[in-house]
């Protein structure tokens, strides 16, 4: 049951994931995946609850969370912008795209805008080299052969969507 106060986090999904996984060998990473998917981030408090539930030391949970790039301890923005910096994209100017996104959003790679709308990340090769340079948003919207000039438009599009 979720608390009504508005400050508490509803742990029921986490507890169910942990319950289903308890006692299974090498289950930690899968649990972290599922929990992050649901809650958006693996906050210290969430890591503690996983540690208690799976009977794995918190140091080990934290060690695993900080080892894998995929896991995050701060919630990501609603739109996760990933700029491919694989070889083909890099050669075709991905670093210029990174500079521009950093400039326009006012955040560094790995950070999230204050309004919680955008997170900025770089990835190594999304496997679409013929479309280089590639930008993906939430792994769903794919922008091909992106030029720095298009960036304002891309960002504005999502802001517009939110405003509606």
């Amino acid at each position, binding site marked *: 049951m979720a608390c009504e106060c508005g400050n508490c986090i509803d742990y029921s999904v986490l507890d169910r994931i942990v319950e289903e996984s308890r006692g299974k060998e090498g289950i930690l990473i899968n649990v972290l995946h599922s929990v992050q998917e649901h809650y958006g981030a693996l906050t*210290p408090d969430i890591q503690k609850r996983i540690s208690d539930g799976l009977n794995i030391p918190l*140091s*080990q949970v*934290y060690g695993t969370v900080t080892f894998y790039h995929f896991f995050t301890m701060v919630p990501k923005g609603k739109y996760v912008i990933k700029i491919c910096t694989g070889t083909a994209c890099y050669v075709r100017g991905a670093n210029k795209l990174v500079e521009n996104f950093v400039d326009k959003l006012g955040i560094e790679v790995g950070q999230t805008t204050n309004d919680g709308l955008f997170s900025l990340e770089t990835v190594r090769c999304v496997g679409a080299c013929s479309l280089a340079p590639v930008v993906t948003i939430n792994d769903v919207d794919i922008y091909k052969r992106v030029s720095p000039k298009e960036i304002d438009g891309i960002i504005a599009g999502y802001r517009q969507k939110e405003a509606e």
Partner: protein
Amino acid sequence: MLNININGMDVKVEKGSTILEAANKIGLKIPTLCHIPEIQKIGACRMCLVDIEGNPKLQASCTTPVVDGMIVKTNTKKVRDTRKFVLELILSDHPTACLTCERNTRCELQTLAAELGVDIVPFRGATSSRGKDNDTLQLNYDGSKCIYCKRCETMCNEVQTVGAIFSQKRGFDSEVGTPFNLPFKDSVCTGCGQCVLNCPVGALKDNENIDEVWDAIYNPDKITVIQVAPSVRVTLGEEFGLKPGSIVTGKIFAAMRRMGFDHIFDTDFAADLTIMEEGYEFINRVKNGGTLPMITSCSPGWVNFIETFFPDLLPNLSTCKSPQQMQGAMVKTYFAEKMKLDPKKIVSISVMPCTAKKGEAKRPEMGRDGYSDVDIAITTREFAKMIRQSEIDFLNLPDEGPDDPIGISTGAGLIFGASGGVMEAALRTALEVIEGHEIKNVDYVGVRGLKLDGFKEATVSTQIDGNPVDVKVAVASGLGNARKLMEKVQAGEADYHFIEIMACPGGCIGGGGQPIPTTTEIRKQRIEGIYKGDKDMPIRKSHENPAIQVLYKEFLGEPNGHKAHELLHTHYTQQKYYENLKK
């Protein structure tokens, strides 16, 4: 058996052995940093690389199992150059201010650099920015010196199953640390110090209290009263070049006197006192249906462990304070009264094999009227350092004894220093009290010895109020073994009456505050020293200690009586960690 050839010599080794073990067998000393014999084989540091015929790449000898007919070379030019290169890479991210390092002249990395002939550190680039922890009573952490050998991590997780520290982050940012880089004191760390004992460099070390001790000695308004724990007398000699297990009891007292301590005592006396209290507590529990199994409470790392991980078993824990605290309590009450000293002026100091004792001394419940039983606890290593600072020629000191009136001790008190010793000492007293007559045999060998994996069990037959009873006991050392035993107790699969637990493998002789190195072999030699010492003692049962008898007669009254309870017993509370983390 497998036949292999190392450096031209034929060696027969058992199947499953590693090349390193085979090489050690014929007296070769292959360098290692991340290796802990029998405990950690991860091949991470690459110092032990060797050349195997037919293999194009050098292999880590600590992880490579021997294959029949293998031809190995451990000291070719390629091997030596590569090892040196690897060491230079490690040194590229390690401070070179050796002169001011805690481990100067006693550092494994420094020794290897000398042995392998590193004359300059050729690679200098960015240095990692790992954390520091000066905030924890039991130890001190300086991440800049860490070489990432993971020996501490393995001791904490595999051997002790505490899990306070673990590898975190990746690449250049990798470090072994507590969750969210909290100070150790805010983690589940028990303060056992096995990480410190196994650190090859100065990344983990004592949180030293030496200066406070000197200040107390030099302060004319203070009265310094010192005690030394049982196991220290068989380990301290190692700091001055003696063989592990050498007994230096007399020299310790002589050194203390020359250093300027006002009153010098032996914790062995308080160990006898512990046996009186714990023995009678045990008899009471057995006779009156108290909570069983009763579990010993002398080891503060263990007390922290049970308070954190098995709070439901706290009623099983003996309410007796540890010998350190009992000694401190007697110093500030009985001794102070007898000598007409103001307890507030007394600085009670202890020399302990233990880092966790520093935490125990600071527990708020361990004292009365605004003063603590023990004010400063220092480790064997710190005490050795103080002796060196005092310009004392330790090895040529005469043998001296402790002071009166609480200076007499027994073999029973001495064996507290080894795993099984508290149990044996308790049996020596409890069975005689139960049966009401002298029992000739004092050697309960079933509970002795170094058991690294699992626990020791013994059954002793006796009679309680005319009824025959088999007293079942178990002894575990190392917190991983303790955990297994406690899980059995929780599951109702253990019908023991009495359990002894020591936090460190082998008991206090392997304590986190003992001289470095402390290996399995060294632990065994120290245990031999303990039992040799016991055998040579004129009195070997705690209740026969005349100073103990006088103490009860003049001051305490009955064992477990009102006064004894007030001064010598304590209580426990569940420890909770990682509360109120960021949401």
